[in-house]
């Protein structure tokens, strides 16, 4: 018997290429094949009118092939003159604005694309960009949420108050919240802030395109999280039929959300140039460009009113927050909707009302970053839990436990609408068991003694914890195609893309299990529209749930056909067959047939091309009285299926941390970090733990180091890895204790839930909790640096409140 691969830490097949330097990232595609290179002139101002752009002399630079501004676009493809699409419309998004591929008349953030140059190499393209003269009329910029709310200046003159959308969700009847709040024995209010950060994958954005005039086809390689999305928009904007465009996602050097937005201006301009110039064209974003012209996330101001009883039970929770979405809003309201709904975590307030405003500012736009609004929601809720515990003088875990949804209450309806337009209904989980596990893992009960020991040495420590629930695996669907070739090798395709999650490995595990083939014989392709034209994309921790389920179902279909043909060939009943290592045999006998031969038999041939294929030719097989391919059958040994769940599945987790804060320097040191995580059944625990490690590191960055420092004129002051402090190994915990809980999801055939974002969600909350505990005063603004903490100590001691 082959052992089941699901649940095993199988080593990744991807690594063999990547370790040898044989990865194919987008900048590695079409090297030296006459490929031209792009540089983009970007706005140096946060808010300005463009009076004039002078490109004369640019084409005189030898090696420059094209220089385009907005005025050139309509002539190249009429739809290119329109604004870029608003990807996710929402009824509340009444003032949606998106940018143009190249700025038209005005610029709204430093970094906005103004002109596009194509040249023999990037050096020459940058030389040429340096020759373009733009005459700007400066306008006052709106920077920061306070300025956006004050609305003394407007980002877009036709958007009053800088408000793109205002959305209210209330789980109670009119007046219910007010009544519950008034009746609550205790009330508290909190004001919190979270600053901007960004995904910053090590590989930035990039696009390569080649137009083939012989076949009238466009091939685009893009470092994207959605190849089908890019394909659709390239076709629409360039005026091509969908069938003329292929999008291939090569190896992607990390995404974390930012590469789900599409199309970036360059994603359209590059294929446009490839067609116009008749040469392959490549754009590779540099690091500064990634900071100022891709996307950020996280920035919010939050106000919380909470009413609770003597046990800390939430009687009424009212949250209002202001979300900074930057200069444009192509990704709609997804991030604030997620904050507003996922804020609830594992808890069940009696009544909850949330109101948010999504605000324009003259800064880089905001699209989801790993966690996608959940870290902010978790922070709001968990700070509230800590505040309640402090107020009541109770243990922080006790207050949380008093509010948990209980294991016998699933499915649990939170009475809200989630980011996918469906009800926020949790499928499964066990929060009390999880709390016990995290307490044991971090040493919650033993901590007071540890604190005393440390205090005796003059050292100051604190402990914190935070809980979250994460809707993962959102729809609408993913699909998969499984093809067993006559060699017996299995070729699998699914349309969503990979950015390092090890999909080729995890998905091959599922196929090997279902089909009974050797893992080595399965090859998985992701994100290639030539192989799977219907797909959505990789985001919201959905790949394993969605494509994993689809692949499982497709493999099942292929298996049904395998068994049918094998039963006929072996003259046995399907029930007596088993497949092991690619051989179908009749149980208890020596009769067998291999998958390759079954594949040969599945495709009736007229022409033999080798010895084996003779088996399938017209004088060898088939009943002359029947059509060679039955009416309800197809030639070939394939299975195709789609998975489209009713709603998301809800993973959950709890993190805890022990920190030490230096009484003099305010340096913050992580002594221990623990994670308990429930993503249902695990496909590959090694990969899941890797995802958690990476998420925790990003969380540490977001909690203690990373922020986008804009000055009042809208310049991003730290747009480099020198100044934006992304953690090195020296900043992350040395060891992360991880424990799993597996409550299978009832919503998909494998019982799995997503895992990709989990590691990052509770970080701001858990560090705020631990630092507060160490310092003895509340932490309300994240991230927090040693100097922030130092200042905070001074303010609080100088003017005690």
């Amino acid at each position, binding site marked *: 018997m082959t052992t089941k691969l699901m649940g095993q830490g199988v080593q990744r097949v991807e690594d063999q290429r990547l370790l040898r*330097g044989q990865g194919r990232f987008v900048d590695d595609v079409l090297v030296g094949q006459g490929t031209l290179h792009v540089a983009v002139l970007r706005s140096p101002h946060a808010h300005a009118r463009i009076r004039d752009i002078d490109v004369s002399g640019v084409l005189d630079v030898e090696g420059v092939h094209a220089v385009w501004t907005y005025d050139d676009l309509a002539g190249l493809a009429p739809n290119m003159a329109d604004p870029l699409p608003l990807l996710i419309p929402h009824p509340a998004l009444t003032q949606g604005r998106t940018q143009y591929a190249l700025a038209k008349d005005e610029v709204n953030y430093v970094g906005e694309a103004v002109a596009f140059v194509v040249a023999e190499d990037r050096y020459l393209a940058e030389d040429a960009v340096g020759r373009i003269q733009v005459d700007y009329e400066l306008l006052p910029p709106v920077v920061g949420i306070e300025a956006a709310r004050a609305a003394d200046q407007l980002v877009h003159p036709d958007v009053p108050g800088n408000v793109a959308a205002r959305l209210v969700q209330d789980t109670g009847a009119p007046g219910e919240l007010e009544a519950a709040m008034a009746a609550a024995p205790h009330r508290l209010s909190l004001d919190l802030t979270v600053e901007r950060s960004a995904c910053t994958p090590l*590989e930035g954005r990039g696009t390569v395109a080649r137009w083939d005039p012989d076949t009238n086809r466009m091939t685009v390689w893009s470092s994207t999280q959605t190849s089908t999305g890019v394909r659709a928009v390239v076709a629409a904007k360039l005026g091509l039929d969908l069938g003329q465009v292929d999008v291939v996602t090569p190896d992607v*050097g990390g995404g974390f959300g930012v590469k789900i937005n599409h199309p970036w201006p360059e994603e359209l301009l590059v294929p446009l140039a490839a067609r116009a110039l008749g040469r392959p064209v490549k754009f590779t974003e540099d690091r500064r460009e990634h900071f100022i012209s891709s996307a950020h996330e996280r920035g919010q101001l939050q106000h919380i009113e909470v009413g609770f009883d003597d046990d800390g039970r939430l009687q009424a929770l009212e949250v209002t927050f202001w979300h900074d979405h930057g200069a444009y809003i192509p990704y709609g309201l997804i991030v604030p909707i997620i904050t507003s709904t996922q804020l609830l975590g594992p808890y069940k307030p009696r009544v909850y009302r949330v109101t948010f405003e999504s605000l324009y500012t003259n800064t880089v736009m905001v699209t989801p970053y790993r966690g996608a609004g959940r870290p902010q929601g978790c922070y709001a809720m968990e700070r509230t839990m800590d505040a309640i515990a402090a107020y009541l003088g109770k243990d922080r875990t006790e207050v949380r436990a008093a509010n948990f949804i209980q294991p016998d209450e699933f499915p649990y309806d939170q009475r809200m609408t989630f980011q996918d337009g469906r009800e926020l209904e949790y499928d499964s989980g066990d929060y009390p068991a999880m709390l016990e596990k995290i307490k044991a893992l971090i040493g919650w009960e033993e901590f007071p003694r540890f604190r005393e020991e440390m205090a005796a040495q003059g050292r100051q420590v604190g402990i914190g914890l935070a809980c979250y629930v994460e809707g993962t695996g959102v729809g609408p669907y993913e699909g998969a195609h499984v093809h067993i070739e006559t060699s017996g090798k299995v070729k699998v395709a699914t349309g969503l893309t990979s950015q*390092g999650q090890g999909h080729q490995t995890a998905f091959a595990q599922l196929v090997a299990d279902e089909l009974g083939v050797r893992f080595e014989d399965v090859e998985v392709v992701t994100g290639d529209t030539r192989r799977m034209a219907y797909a959505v994309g990789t985001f919201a921790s959905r790949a394993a749930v969605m494509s994993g389920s689809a692949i499982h179902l497709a493999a099942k279909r292929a298996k049904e056909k395998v068994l049918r043909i094998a039963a006929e060939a072996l003259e046995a009943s399907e029930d007596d067959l088993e497949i092991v290592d690619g051989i179908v045999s009749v149980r208890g006998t020596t009769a067998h047939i291999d998958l390759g031969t079954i594949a040969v038999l599945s495709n009736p041939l007229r022409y033999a091309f080798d010895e084996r294929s003779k088996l399938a030719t017209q004088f060898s097989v088939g009943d002359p009285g029947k059509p060679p391919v039955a009416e309800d059958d197809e030639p070939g040994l394939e299975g195709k299926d789609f998975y489209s769940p009713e709603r998301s599945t809800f993973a959950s987790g709890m993190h805890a941390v022990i920190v030490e804060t230096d009484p003099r320097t305010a340096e913050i040191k992580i002594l221990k970090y623990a994670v308990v995580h429930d993503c249902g059944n695990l496909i590959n625990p090694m990969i899941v733990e*890797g995802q958690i*490690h990476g998420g925790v590191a990003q969380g540490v960055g977001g909690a203690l180091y990373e922020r986008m420092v804009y000055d009042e004129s809208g310049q991003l002051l730290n747009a480099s890895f020198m100044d934006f402090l992304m953690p*090195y190994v020296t900043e*992350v915990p040395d060891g992360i204790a991880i424990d799993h809980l597996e409550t299978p999801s009832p919503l998909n055939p494998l019982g799995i839930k997503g895992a990709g974002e989990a590691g990052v969600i509770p970080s701001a909350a858990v560090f705020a909790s631990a630092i507060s505990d160490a310092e003895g005063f509340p932490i309300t603004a994240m991230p927090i640096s040693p100097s922030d903490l130092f200042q905070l100590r001074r303010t609080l001691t100088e003017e005690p409140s």
Partner: protein
Amino acid sequence: MSPDTSTEERHEVVLTVNGVAHEVSLPARRLLSDALRHDLGLTGTHVGCEHGVCGACTVLLDGAPVRACLVLAVQCEGVEVTTVEGLGGPDGSLSPVQQAFAECHGLQCGFCTPGFLTTVTAGLRDNPTPTHEEAREMVAGNLCRCTGYQNIVKAVERAAVIAGDATAEEAR
């Protein structure tokens, strides 16, 4: 083929990479990272920041780890350049460091990986039996956004063991 349209002065240089000599004609400003990737087609060396901070572009120059984005290609004549493509055995086998990264799940997207592999290769040559602290320090100048470094540190320690076993084997 790209026509030579640049009016910039070009320099004839011989770049010796992974033991192979390449004659190339380059403008003085061409970075080593770009020359490797675009002129020699050795795309295993990655560029994550182009300002010397991330370490993704790290190659070995006469055995010493150097950031290829901070070196001009024309400076490298007469220098042995080793890139990730040159780390494995001539038979295509993985080096101990590469092997350890595979075993320990020390990479996810793999974009930072070439820089870690070259850095650790040089590090373990200089210190074949690092302590845990030394293993962490060895990779403390390279950025990875995916792995949270936990398994990279494990891979360094594992690589030391694999390399140690191999040396012991040879000695026998």
